[in-house]
């Protein structure tokens, strides 16, 4: 059942062609085998997933399935809590930690009978764009093993692309679902901020973080998003009336895009450092949109070039506060032989955090420190208002916007590890979406880029327009012969 769509798996389960135990045994076997090369999972508890699969098969035999997707496994990023499983955020400081509770999204998966599968590798605390910042070794891109899978949800994207699981959950703070989806040639979606509860997601930058789906096709992404979304009393930032109707919206997807206005932000198309293969592929996608009857309009995001700067101020400031909790006292790794409380903090954090996490905590501490707060943090928050105004003005003239997801195809391992700033600039097209709370999706562009590697086309829509995004993406996918 490798690479089977959710629809196909549902059918196999319903007709008895396959049991949940058989499906997860297949996933376990492939995950085990790919450990040597792709290395998408840090940990897989085969007893736990097998037990859950047996329970699912028993429910099915008794005619008591919890949903059509009962018994289907879902890859889980290592920063999303599953009770009784490690939740290390790919960090040494959380190496001994076992979660005492389920994240809300995991609770919702379980309520549908779905099986949380493995701990997908990531950049430590979701800080990175290549999955190389994992304390437990990098994940490799299934489309080219000398390439990174992108990040930070690199394990989730690689697991789906390699057919280890049919779908997976990731988290996106500045592009961490969309960029790895683009690099691995799968669909990745960052929902409107507040649509999915963050309860049980280890916080990186609370005002930007959002959990979302990675899948082989648009419909599967919609199904998974619907299952995990909805308001939650335990997340005060979850939207009170978030709908769960993305899959339903696809039923009405047209075979053409007549009447849809697609905005092309001119600043994004004037950015330097974009691969010519990516440019060519995105141009092909634009032609396809036109041939489907969409109206292409030029729009402008005048402050776009400041988004990366503002992001690295806001995200690191929030991170420096959020990661203060990892102090070696109540949970996680504690440095041995420290002489005092302060020494325990200093050494536990010095030993437990990797280089990139230290860099970002230091930047966040600096921009919040006395004398620099107004020049950096407050100024970045004001810039965020300008980004929002730009996006509002652009969306007044179009239904969705289109751009590349990433300026390049998947780069080689170690190609950018010596230059953090270069790594940050890999996020130029994805970051503003988080700052403005919009929703966006990366889906495979029909033509490959440099080295025959996948290119992602990013579609962006205003907050709460997730359904529009899915409908347009579905029509586009269908036109290139995507899953029917």
């Amino acid at each position: 059942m490798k690479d089977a769509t959710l629809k196909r798996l549902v059918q196999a389960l319903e007709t008895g062609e396959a049991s949940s135990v058989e499906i997860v045994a297949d996933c376990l076997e492939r995950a085990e085998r790919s450990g040597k090369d792709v290395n998408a999972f840090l940990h897989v508890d085969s007893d736990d997933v097998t037990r859950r699969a047996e329970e699912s098969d028993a429910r099915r035999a008794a005619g008591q399935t919890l949903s059509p997707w009962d018994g289907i496994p879902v890859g889980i990023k290592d920063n999303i809590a599953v009770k009784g499983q490690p939740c290390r955020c790919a960090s040494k400081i959380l190496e001994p930690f076992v979660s005492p509770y389920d994240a809300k999204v995991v609770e919702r998966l379980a309520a549908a009978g779905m099986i949380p599968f493995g701990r997908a590798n990531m950049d430590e605390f979701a800080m990175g764009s290549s999955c190389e910042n994992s304390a437990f070794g990098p994940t490799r891109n299934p489309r080219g093993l000398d390439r990174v899978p992108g990040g930070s949800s690199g394990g989730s994207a690689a697991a789906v692309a390699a057919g280890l699981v049919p779908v997976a959950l990731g988290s996106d703070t500045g592009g961490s679902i969309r960029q790895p989806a683009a690099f691995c040639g799968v669909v990745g979606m960052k929902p409107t901020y507040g649509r999915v509860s963050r309860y049980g997601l280890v916080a990186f930058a609370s005002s930007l973080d959002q959990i979302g789906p990675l899948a082989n096709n648009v419909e599967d992404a919609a199904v998974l998003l619907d299952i995990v979304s909805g308001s939650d009393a335990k997340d005060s930032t979850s939207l009170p009336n978030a709908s769960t109707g993305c899959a339903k919206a696809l039923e009405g997807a047209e075979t053409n895009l007549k009447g849809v206005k697609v905005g092309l932000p001119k600043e994004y198309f004037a950015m330097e450092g974009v691969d010519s293969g990516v440019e060519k592929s995105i141009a092909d996608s634009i032609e396809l949109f036109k041939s489907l009857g969409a109206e292409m309009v030029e729009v402008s995001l005048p402050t776009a070039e400041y988004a990366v700067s503002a992001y690295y101020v806001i995200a690191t400031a929030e991170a420096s506060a959020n990661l203060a909790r990892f102090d070696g006292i109540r949970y996680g790794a504690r440095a041995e032989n420290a002489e005092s409380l302060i020494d325990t903090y200093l050494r536990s954090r010095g030993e437990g955090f990797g280089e990139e996490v230290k860099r970002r905590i230091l930047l966040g501490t600096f921009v919040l420190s006395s004398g620099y707060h107004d020049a950096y943090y407050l100024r970045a928050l004001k810039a965020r208002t300008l980004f929002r105004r730009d996006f509002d003005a652009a969306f007044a003239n179009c239904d969705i916007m289109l751009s590349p997801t990433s300026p390049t195809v998947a780069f080689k391992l170690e190609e950018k590890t010596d230059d953090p700033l270069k790594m940050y600039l890999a996020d130029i097209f994805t970051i503003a979406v988080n700052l403005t709370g919009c929703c966006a999706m990366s889906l495979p562009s029909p033509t490959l880029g440099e080295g025959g590697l996948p290119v992602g086309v990013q579609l962006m829509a205003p907050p709460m327009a997730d359904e529009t995004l899915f409908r347009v993406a579905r029509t586009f996918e269908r036109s290139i012969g995507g899953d029917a």
Partner: protein
Amino acid sequence: MGDAGDRFDVRKTAELARIELDDESANRLRSDMERIVAYVDKLAELDVDGVEPTCHAVPLSDVLRPDAEEPSFSRDDILANAPAVVEDELVKVPPVIEQ
């Protein structure tokens, strides 16, 4: 905003952030941070006079859940993650008040 290197004091910032750094990583982080701070200095070009700050993507406020009793984590579950425990019921910590 002047030269980034003059403003960013890696030792002082690391102390505020409670992160111990050895000399090698302090040196490396200092040079990285000077470049990163110089890059984010670009924000100074933006005219933000009279612009209100945006702290959150969704402006929700005073969100409360019902004040209802519900089960909490058991002490055993929480202590299972503690690095050091006293008498199976307390988290053991290093001396808070120095001698």
